[in-house]
């Protein structure tokens, strides 16, 4: 589904990703772990189409298409979803307005008719319940005045509503209490299927207790330095990243 080959990217004059390769097949869950500044968030945002990053080499294909050639909104409509590490507050745009625009943009892209107001409301209410949010929060500005946990629940709500094919979660678990963490994990698991794939960017093993990954990768110095199964996450939890952080020449 997602094939990244030798991807290099800069922000400003700084090189962040250095010839990174990763293949994610349908039905798989990949966890990407690694120390701060390794390039984890860059990878997630770049895949979603953030324009701050300049791709200097390599290719990314998504369902056989050149992902890097697509505008961010086209990626989203084609099923790529990024759960932001720091969701943006947008006062004056209600959550409902955003969700409705998002759903209809995707339906339109798929050549399907837009949802009418009644059907949309029923659909969203059910998803709101799934993430244990207060329905009245739908009327508030997007993430406006939300706590950290509420913002992450809201990301998961958007994800459930958009029903993506490829889920990219950028440290969605950080700073969450156990209830919120379970909501996040339940959301991911609800969308997990043989037809979807998930990339979890995380610092901690904790989320992986609830969302079992098929593969765990360590991203350090802009490239994947080690890959393994779920046991690698446990090993990292125990040993930290120090033993893996070596200069690219040694790797």
């Amino acid at each position, binding site marked *: 589904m997602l094939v990244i080959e030798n991807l290099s990217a800069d922000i400003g004059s700084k090189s962040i990703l250095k010839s990174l390769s990763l293949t994610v097949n349908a039905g798989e869950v990949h966890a990407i772990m690694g120390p701060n500044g390794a390039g984890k968030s860059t990878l997630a945002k770049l895949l*979603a*189409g*953030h*324009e701050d990053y300049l791709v200097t080499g390599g290719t990314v294909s998504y369902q056989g298409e050149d992902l890097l050639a697509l*505008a*961010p*909104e086209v*990626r*989203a*409509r084609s099923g790529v*979803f*990024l759960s*932001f590490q720091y*969701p*943006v507050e*947008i*006062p*004056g*745009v209600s959550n409902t*307005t*955003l969700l409705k*625009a*998002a759903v209809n*943009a*995707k339906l339109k*892209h798929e050549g399907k008719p837009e949802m009418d107001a009644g059907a949309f409301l029923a659909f969203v209410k059910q998803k709101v319940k799934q993430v244990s949010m207060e329905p009245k929060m739908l009327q508030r*500005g*997007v993430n406006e005045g939300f706590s950290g946990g509420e913002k992450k629940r809201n990301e998961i709500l*958007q994800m459930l509503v*958009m029903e993506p094919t490829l889920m990219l979660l950028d440290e969605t678990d950080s700073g969450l209490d156990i209830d919120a963490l379970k909501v996040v994990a339940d959301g991911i698991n609800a969308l997990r299927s043989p037809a979807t794939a998930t990339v979890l960017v995380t610092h901690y093993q904790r989320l992986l207790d609830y969302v079992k990954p098929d593969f765990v990768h360590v991203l350090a110095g802009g490239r994947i330095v080690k890959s393994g199964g779920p046991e690698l996450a446990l090993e990292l939890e125990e040993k930290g990243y120090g033993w893996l952080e070596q200069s690219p020449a040694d790797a």
Partner: protein
Amino acid sequence: MNFFDSCRNSLPQDQHAQRVDAFARFEAAGWPTPALETWHYSDWSSLAEKSFTVAKPAQEPLFTLDRAQPLPLLALDPVQVETPFALDALNRAFAKQGVDKTIDGVANIPFLITQALGGEQTMRHLRHRLALSVGAKATVVLWDAPGTGAGETLLTAVLTLTLAAGSHLTLIRVQEADAKATRALHLKAQVAADATLEMVQLDLGGARVRQEIEVTLAEPGARFEQAGLAALSGKSRVDQRSHIWHAAPHCTSRSSARLIAAGSSRAILNAKVQVQPGAAKTDSETRIASLLLSDKAEIDAKPELEIYADDVQCAHGATFGQLDEDAAFYLRSRGLSAAEAQALLTQAFAQAALDRLPLPGLKAWAEQRVSTLLMASAP
């Protein structure tokens, strides 16, 4: 034939001498230009080359929102108060009608004043007087409707407001003149003790629009609250000037404006607060926030403060913003196009003013109208 010749021949016959005199004064002064101290940003001298005939009475357009009750236009009293409006003499020369209403008690249904103009190369001049008795409470919508014809039109209006002690007037001004319309409004308000004048202004069109607001907070406890939104596109040009006089102690004024200019439009706002000697404990705040959506658009925002009293609390500021790029990316990452994201974020910027509309029907209409306007002017 130029404007002055065509007008001189069509002056109304009633109170003819007074009208001839008023028109002579207007002709001597000419159309306002930036040479006038209060008319710094606009030049209307080219109107002298145009000719307008007095509009014939026509069916007024219907405003059906919020069960608003139209106030009838009455024949004017011959005695008229002069105002410092640069088009005052022109208005006095031709004005034959206007709303003349004293409101007592609490009015539950909003009143409506419709300012409309049919035909092409036509003009109309109105002079309104509105008074609220002691303790009265009312909402009035002043609606500048779009014209029906394709040609140019000219409309001037003078509105005098008197708010007696403890009264409360919510005045909603909706200006949606068409792309060939010239509109000028001079509003003069006197606010007595513990009375409140609340204004919400929406400017959504017009080729050449001038609005002047002079509010005198005349007695202790008087209050003025203003929220404005100008959402302009095409070649609209809206020039607003407000002058708030704090003439007594313990008065409050709050002014908040949002200006959005797309296309090659231009929005001008000069908001002045003047605290008179003796007006201690004045509490005043003026905020102007502007958003430019195109390289060809222009916004001139100028808050001013003149203080001649001690022990006052006054704040003013003007900010210019670009749309938040992080917010735009966030919306695009949810499938919205760049244009949709811009329109939604601009709408959000406008929403702060729209939220101040107290009438639900009008609010929903205005949200839709602003949304359509912004969507149409998205790149």
